[in-house]
């Protein structure tokens, strides 16, 4: 609780100092919105429904892309860990493509699919798939062989060994891979929304950010950035904290 108050007081102080500096004109107002400007924009944009619609559009795209990445990446990662042939082929491809910043997929996506949802989905998928795949493979490969041997002597084999031993044993690695994949998906989507302008099927937060720049509305730009941070934080907490709590109690790993 004490740490909560420390953080709260810190941010309150930052906001107050910021507001003070802008109001006194020490920071140039057209380039530097004050916290109250941002707050006003957020209230107005919420009331008009614009922000909620945009967040909804963005979240739909994000979850679609991310969950397809998980659904494809986790099993492929498992297979990759299991079969040497896949490691020497698919594994090398994944390793190469993972180093490619996700926004680099945007030109290809635009040429292939055009300015539409498919392009958007493709960029998110390419952005997160390979890191999930590789983290799963790494996780399985770092399971201590003694677990496998112990399970074998108790009569576990084949599929049972995989779901009852290899998967839970690699959970700490797999979850951190899922987190990393999530972070990549979020970044890819923002890149895609700013770069692949899609208006017909809904304006996402990235597009609002883009428009904010076009009309030079710095308060809007900063306000949308705040929303993007908040969504990122919330999703991270909601999706991963159950796993992290479980690992903390079972493995005894430290929790920040």
């Amino acid at each position, binding site marked *: 609780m004490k740490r909560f108050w420390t953080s709260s007081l810190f941010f309150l102080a930052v906001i107050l100092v910021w507001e003070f500096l802008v109001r006194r004109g020490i920071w140039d107002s057209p380039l530097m919105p004050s916290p109250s400007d941002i707050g006003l924009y957020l209230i107005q944009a919420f009331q008009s429904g614009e922000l909620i619609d945009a967040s909804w559009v963005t979240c739909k795209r994000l979850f679609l892309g991310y969950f397809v990445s998980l659904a494809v990446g986790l099993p492929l990662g498992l297979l990759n860990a299991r079969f040497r042939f896949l490691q020497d082929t698919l594994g090398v491809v994944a390793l190469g493509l993972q180093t490619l910043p996700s926004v680099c997929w945007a030109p290809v996506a635009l040429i292939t699919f055009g300015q539409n949802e498919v392009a958007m989905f493709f960029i998110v998928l390419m952005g997160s798939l390979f890191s999930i795949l590789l983290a799963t493979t790494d996780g399985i490969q770092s399971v*201590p062989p*003694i*677990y496998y*041997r*112990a*399970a*074998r*002597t*108790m*009569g*576990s*084999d084949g599929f*049972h060994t995989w779901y*009852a*031993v290899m998967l*839970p*044993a690699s*959970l700490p690695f797999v979850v951190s891979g899922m987190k990393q994949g999530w972070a990549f998906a979020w970044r890819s989507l923002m890149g895609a929304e700013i770069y692949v302008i899609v208006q017909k099927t809904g304006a996402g937060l990235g597009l609002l950010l883009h428009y904010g720049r076009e009309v030079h509305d710095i308060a809007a730009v900063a306000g949308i950035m705040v929303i993007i941070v908040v969504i990122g934080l919330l999703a991270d907490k909601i999706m991963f904290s159950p796993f992290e709590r479980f690992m903390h*109690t*079972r*493995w*005894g790993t430290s929790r920040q």
Partner: protein
Amino acid sequence: MSIDTELVSAPPEKLVIEKVSKHFDTSQGKVIALDNVSLSVREGEFVCLVGPSGCGKSTLLNMIAGLEMPDSGQILADGNAIKGPGSERMMMFQESALFPWLDVLGNVMFGLRLKPNLKDAERRDVARFYIKLVGLEKFTHSNVHELSGGMKQRVALARALAPNPRLLLMDEPFAALDAMTREQLYRDIQDIWTERKKTILFVTHNVREAACLGDRVILFSPHPGRIQEKFDVRLPRNRDINSVDLASYSSEITKALKRHLRPAGEEVAK
């Protein structure tokens, strides 16, 4: 199979090892881990395998567990060749190899879940019975990382006993523990062996430990792994590791061990 038959010890297994050889291909070339090894173990016998590292005693244990296959020769359990792992032969390792994603009860139940024809409630009862047997009933729901090294090995023992095996294979299970904990476990394992009547094969490189626990001590020499001598330890149970009678046995075995080591031989721990 039901809970009643589960809690009664299954009859111990008779083990016959016939002219078993096994080699490994390593970066240094072909290593003969075991060369024409024969040994027979009576039902309910406690046999300790002693020898310096590289004498193939762990390899032999792995083959009896069904994790590896001999190049030649055969291993018979009650007259049947061992084809793979099975719940009648359980193994314990130097590391506890407990699963950190399960609590103590979950770990002990792991092998039981692989036995068909038992209800989950019955499995839980069986697991609790063995957790009590190793004296950890207060820690039934503890996480693995909360246990000390000795407690972990107790849980590993309970996990190995729970599927009611007829043969227990122990690969230096106490080597990583401190002396006090080890002495307690020597008493416990003798109690459990007397009470539950299992055939036990126990690998160690601690001669005194072998003399304390074994009805027989089998001495291996390395490169290639061969059986050199067999000693009968005729001392009443339960034996105390610090007793004087035991010391005379262990010094006799140690002398033999030194005799069989090659001139360039490796260092032997204790």
